[in-house]
């Protein structure tokens, strides 16, 4: 058990603390001066600490200086954050092999080293908690992150100095280190030594090894007074009450364009931030693509490729969009996603911005306290009941092998692969879910499941880039690796006793086919069923024979239309909303499922609403740039949502303006 006793470690005995940590089998990582800054690195000797060093920071500026005094922890906020060790900049993920038709994939990951983090400040403790929460929130969590965090013993230090860029007080994270916030040991530095408190049984064990005298009440009070002075020095620079709502209502503020004039979109703020966790996956392989490796590396919402989908287009083409994404995520939508602010007030982003943009200033300008309430872009979710996810036992989530048993060409660029899959989880997929489909040496795309069978699944894939092209080139007998099934499925059960309308545009029919299968498998449970199909031209229609057979049934209505056609086509030509916008069925009893290109879904949702279908009963599925598929890489974010985890199926009501707003 943790005792409340405070002990005292004389300055001269600091090496004993390091010794005790080493005796616990740990490598000590802590602050040291290098290249004109304080960074975190491995320490073997207390002499390597920044004894007598202080730093001064300002927007776009960081300077260290030796002040000749003897304190080791007065250096302020270093460049490095502890995420360098819990969420390293490059992490190997998997190795895979392709021999002819056969594929094997195995995760890579040794046990993380046992470390001791020496010098963790209160704000950094909060950052460790916040980032870990984010990494445990998805369906499988990030076991690598959790393992690294668990392998670290945290020796916190209270701040006895403040920098001009600190604002932990406003964010509620410091400067005091309070019990039960993740520290194993807590040090408070005085001139002649350190007050030592233990914060966990592991910390208590270390203290036990050191056999320290108790601290005097004078010493304890000196420490408390110094920390209190830091709190006074910092003040309360950021008005955080109601900030998430104020920011959410300020998505169209003119200041965003103003910041964009100055912002370099260089990503420095996100990479120095101790809670930013976004990553991308890099593929490496030998010349033949037979042996491949994937690794995960730090990425940033400021890079164009982060929000890329079609071709070179990006969801966030303008710097203004990217800066808005970062600031609103950090201070507003982080609350929707993880139940806290994403910012701890460490001030690194202010100091290390090459052009000195100061978030405190920007927040005050964009979301001032006295702002009049603006339009609400999406309903703010109640802090979601997202308890930390149970951990997967391997990293990444296990791959299931699938064998191609049939290849059907649907159109010039689209193929349906019929896959035999032994993995029961994948065969238990629900309509609307997707898998990450992997061929060694290629990027890994998310593909919607287009049919679910007891012994496997179908994937309908459009060759729109090298990786999807490689998938469509697979022949019968080829193997590929799947991860999943992921995503929130279509709420088919909720449509029970309702009339059902299904609107599919182009390849959007693929994720809707399992809905049709499910409804027809239990036809009696549903009211009238109407299927509206749109495609570019007659030659671009999917599942032509199957849909024609459906058209022959009396228990559902099927109508199709194409955008353009030659004179041989005697069917309908026009846009898919023309199939139902002048019908007379009662929209109030309808649950609608819609999928197709973004523009088509927007037009369809609007037309359905005009027909009386409630937005809360209109469901669509979104597509975003995904690397992990499980909510830990950050790429698929849309406002407060992770499309891979909160979606890809959403109701029009819950999306609000996220469905149509540009640059989100």
């Amino acid at each position, binding site marked *: 058990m943790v005792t409340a006793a405070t002990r005292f470690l004389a300055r001269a005995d600091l090496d004993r603390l390091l010794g005790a940590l080493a005796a616990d089998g740990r490598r000590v990582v802590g602050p040291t001066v290098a290249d004109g800054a304080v960074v975190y690195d491995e320490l073997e000797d207390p002499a390597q600490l920044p004894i007598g060093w202080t730093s001064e920071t300002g927007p776009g500026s960081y300077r260290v200086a030796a002040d000749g005094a003897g304190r080791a922890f007065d250096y302020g906020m270093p460049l490095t954050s502890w995420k360098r060790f819990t969420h390293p900049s490059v992490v190997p993920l998997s190795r895979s092999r392709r021999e002819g038709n056969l594929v094997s994939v195995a995760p890579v990951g040794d046990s993380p080293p046992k470390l001791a983090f020496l010098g963790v400040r209160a704000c950094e403790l909060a950052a460790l908690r916040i980032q870990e929460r984010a990494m445990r929130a998805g369906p499988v969590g990030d076991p690598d992150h959790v393992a690294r965090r668990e392998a670290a013993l945290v020796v916190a230090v209270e701040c006895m100095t403040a920098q001009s860029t600190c604002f932990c007080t406003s964010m509620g994270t410091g400067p005091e280190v309070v019990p039960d916030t993740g520290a194993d040991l807590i040090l408070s530095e005085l001139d002649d030594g350190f007050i030592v408190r233990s914060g966990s049984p592991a910390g208590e064990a270390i203290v036990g090894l050191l056999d320290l005298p108790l601290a005097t009440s004078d010493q304890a009070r000196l420490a408390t007074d110094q920390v209190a002075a830091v709190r006074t020095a910092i003040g309360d620079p950021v008005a955080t009450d109601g900030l998430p709502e104020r920011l959410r209502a300020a998505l169209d503020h003119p200041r965003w364009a103003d910041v964009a004039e100055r912002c370099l979109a260089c990503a420095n703020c996100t990479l120095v931030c101790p809670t930013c966790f976004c990553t991308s996956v890099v593929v490496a392989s030998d010349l033949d693509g037979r042996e491949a490796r994937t690794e995960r590396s730090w990425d940033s919402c400021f890079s164009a490729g982060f929000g890329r989908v079609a071709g070179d287009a990006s969801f966030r083409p303008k710097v203004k969009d990217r800066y808005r994404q970062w600031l609103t995520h950090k201070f507003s939508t982080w609350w929707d996603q993880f139940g806290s602010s994403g910012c701890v007030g460490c001030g690194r982003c202010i100091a290390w911005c090459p052009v000195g943009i100061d978030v405190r200033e920007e927040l005050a300008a964009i979301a001032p306290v006295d702002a009049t309430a603006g339009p609400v872009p999406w309903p703010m979710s109640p802090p979601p009941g997202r308890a930390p996810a149970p951990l997967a036992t391997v990293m990444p989530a296990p791959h299931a092998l699938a064998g191609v048993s049939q290849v059907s060409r649907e159109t010039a660029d689209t193929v349906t692969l019929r896959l035999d899959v032994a993995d029961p989880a994948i065969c238990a997929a629900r309509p609307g879910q997707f898998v990450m489909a992997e061929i060694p040496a290629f990027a890994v795309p998310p593909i919607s499941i287009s049919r679910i069978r007891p012994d496997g699944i179908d994937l309908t894939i459009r060759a729109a880039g090298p990786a999807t092209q490689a998938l469509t080139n697979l022949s019968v007998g080829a193997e590929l690796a799947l991860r999943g099934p992921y995503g929130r499925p279509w709420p088919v059960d909720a449509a029970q006793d309702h009339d059902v309308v299904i609107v599919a545009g182009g390849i959007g029919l693929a994720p809707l086919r399992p809905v049709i299968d499910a409804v027809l498998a239990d036809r009696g449970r549903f009211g009238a069923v109407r299927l509206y199909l749109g495609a570019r031209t007659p030659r671009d229609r999917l599942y032509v024979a199957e849909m024609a057979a459906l058209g022959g049934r009396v228990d559902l209505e099927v109508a199709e239309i194409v955008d353009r056609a030659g004179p041989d*086509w005697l069917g309908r030509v026009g846009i898919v909303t023309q199939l139902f916008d002048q019908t007379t069925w009662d929209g109030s009893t309808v649950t609608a499922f819609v999928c197709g290109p973004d523009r088509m879904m927007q037009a369809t949702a609007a037309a359905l609403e005009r027909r009386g279908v409630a937005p809360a009963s209109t469901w669509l599925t979104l597509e975003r740039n995904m690397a992990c598929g499980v909510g830990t890489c950050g790429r698929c974010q849309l406002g407060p949502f992770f499309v891979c985890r909160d979606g890809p199926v959403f109701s029009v009501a819950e999306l609000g303006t996220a469905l149509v707003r540009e640059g989100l």
Partner: protein
Amino acid sequence: MQTSALTTVLGDTWFGASLPVAARARLAGAGALAEIPDGTVLLEEGRPCTLMGILVSGRVALRLVVRGVGERTIMTLEPGDVFGWSAVLPRALATSTCVAVAPSVAILFDGVGLLTALELDSELAAVVYRRLLETVARRLSATRVQLLDVYRTVGEPW
């Protein structure tokens, strides 16, 4: 067909359904129900638009010719849709070729006759022109979306 019967048929179409009943009768008086065999060319692109029609059943295709490519169907009309609305405009020329692609039935209006009737009857003109505007607006909206070519394949990041 008797005007009163035609009025009922008109009232069952999208076009006629929102017209006041009295207006429906006056409009019906200017038209006639016609059976249109499959393949009938009702209007030719660029030629004078001599008639306007409201489709009651069947299907009509609107086609344009692109030299070197051939005929393209740009839209089809379903029961309730209007073709030949250019007939009520000055210098009425058909904007596309209208062909029946299935055995169809439509209420046809002689262009000159309809124009005269609308000029003489301003109350009728008001409701008919508004409904025609809605028709054209709906078609313009659809055409714009077709123009976006939303289904075309663009490269993906994978």
